[in-house]
């Protein structure tokens, strides 16, 4: 191998280790102290050292062990510097021995699920849970996360720092909750992953290539939870839901880049492998006999996916599923979707009545899907002025240029 090839191979090994091992090593290094920033700093130094050492000497046989050793030196140095304040010599020796044992054994325990539970702990502000997971498990930087969540990079950085300080100072535990509280706590972890996916999804066709990654990173996190907690039906339901949505990514735009609504999508462009994966997960989840929000939402998507085989959409089934979902969550967003489905089975007037009932309850001034649904239904029942007004609001609220262009065409088509 030439020196240049060796350098490239070492770089590739470091990049692979970063993706596969980052969260595992942060979770391992921070598990005892609860000090996530110290673990991240130590690991960042270890990766920097790897980028110089590996090209020069070749990648080590056990990259994770190598990184832990390098990070451990930094952690010990840092701990020594503030020893008088916090850690006794005895505690230091303990950390040292534990880290050393990990580097000798090739296997480093996988505590990523515990780290996720810490990030999505009830004591942590709900809006920062998903960003925190993206950073600690996947190593994304504050600027990339801020772009996806529409927050300035400096504000995102500060919020992440505050949340990590809270984990440490409030003693948020790195552990998997007990059986009785597991479903609720896991639900919060899953919500955070879904929030990351939704942000990645809506940004997926913007010019920022990081948007596309974020949806895939969320799916990666979903797979990780399913792998680490294999008997949780809602985790399987969430992964299925994300895979169904992701299977349609190639069909959401025409060759010219125009927005294509679900009902007009060319089913041949849907990703069959992803759909089959999702169907398997949903079937496995239903074995448990404990339905939940994500399984129900995935089931709606499964009905949509069946159109690729039958050529039609089973709207009565979708209405039923949204009814169950609304009973379970009371979510105004679900109410909007249910009204749109009812319009398919019972006619536009019935759908519009339901939608307006939902509108009277929820605060939908800035919720674009509500105005799109209202505009479509008003147009169908012949209330053209109200349809114009609703389209106009939807256009003003839309951030995606292709979807905006689509709505402007619909508005123009009313005349």
């Amino acid at each position, binding site marked *: 191998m030439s020196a240049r090839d060796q350098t490239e191979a070492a770089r590739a090994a470091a990049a692979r280790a970063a993706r596969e091992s980052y969260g595992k090593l942060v979770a391992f290094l921070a598990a005892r102290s609860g000090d996530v920033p110290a673990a991240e700093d130590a690991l960042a130094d270890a990766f920097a050292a790897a980028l110089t050492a590996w090209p020069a000497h070749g990648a080590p046989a056990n990259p994770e062990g190598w990184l832990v050793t390098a990070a451990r030196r930094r952690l010990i140095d840092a701990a020594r510097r503030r020893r008088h304040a916090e850690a006794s010599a005895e505690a230091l020796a303990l950390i040292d021995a534990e880290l050393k044992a990990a580097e000798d054994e090739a296997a480093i325990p996988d505590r990523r699920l515990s780290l996720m539970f810490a990030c999505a702990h009830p004591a942590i502000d709900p809006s920062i849970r998903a960003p925190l997971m993206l950073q600690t498990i996947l190593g994304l930087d504050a600027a990339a996360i801020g772009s996806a969540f*529409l*927050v*300035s990079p400096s*504000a995102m950085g500060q919020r992440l720092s505050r949340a990590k300080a809270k984990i440490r100072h409030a003693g948020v535990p790195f552990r998997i909750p007990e059986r009785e509280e597991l479903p609720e706590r896991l639900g919060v972890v899953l919500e955070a992953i879904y929030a990351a996916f939704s942000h990645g999804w809506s940004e997926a066709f913007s010019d920022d290539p990081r948007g596309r990654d974020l949806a895939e990173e969320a799916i990666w996190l979903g797979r990780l939870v399913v792998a680490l907690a294999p008997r949780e039906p809602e985790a399987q339901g969430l992964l299925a839901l994300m895979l169904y949505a992701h299977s349609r990514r190639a069909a959401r735009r025409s060759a010219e880049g125009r927005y294509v609504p679900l009902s007009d999508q060319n089913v041949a462009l849907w990703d069959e492998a992803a759909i089959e994966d999702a169907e398997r997960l949903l079937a496995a989840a239903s074995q448990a006999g404990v339905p939940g929000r994500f399984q129900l939402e995935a089931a709606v998507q499964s009905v949509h996916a069946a159109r690729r085989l039958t050529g039609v959409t089973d709207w009565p089934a979708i209405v039923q599923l949204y009814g169950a979902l609304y009973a379970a969550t009371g979510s105004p967003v679900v109410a909007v979707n249910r009204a749109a489905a009812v319009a398919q089975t019972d006619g536009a007037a019935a759908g519009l009545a339901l939608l307006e009932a939902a509108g009277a309850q929820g605060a939908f*001034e*800035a919720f674009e899907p509500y105005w799109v649904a209202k505009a479509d239904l008003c147009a169908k029942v012949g209330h053209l002025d109200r349809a114009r007004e609703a*389209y*106009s*609001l*939807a*256009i*003003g*609220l*839309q*951030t995606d*240029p292709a979807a*905006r*262009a689509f709505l*402007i065409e619909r*508005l123009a088509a009313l005349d």
Partner: protein
Amino acid sequence: MQYLLMIHRDEKTLQALTQDDASRLMAAYGAYTKAMSEAGVYVGGERLHPSSTATVVRVKDGKTSVLNGPYAEIKEQLGGYYLIEAPDLDAAISWAARCPGAATGAIEVRPIWAM
């Protein structure tokens, strides 16, 4: 809090728009302004004439100088602004992201210094 959303865009590409694209853009801005008004966010906003109409005035050592053209000759020029009332920066950013100009240029979000 009040924020100023400054719309910077490439004037050349704007002038090169077809009639159809230009009217679509105007429709998008109209809808955007309306959505902001409905949400109680809109305080004010105007479109500016191109930077070729700009004049820069300075007074130095008691002497006035008047120059043609914009303050800085850069590709993307200030083309208009919105003044909005938003609870915090996040809310202001979410409105900036909806601005039609965000897809073709850049929106600078600046908090107003309350006196």
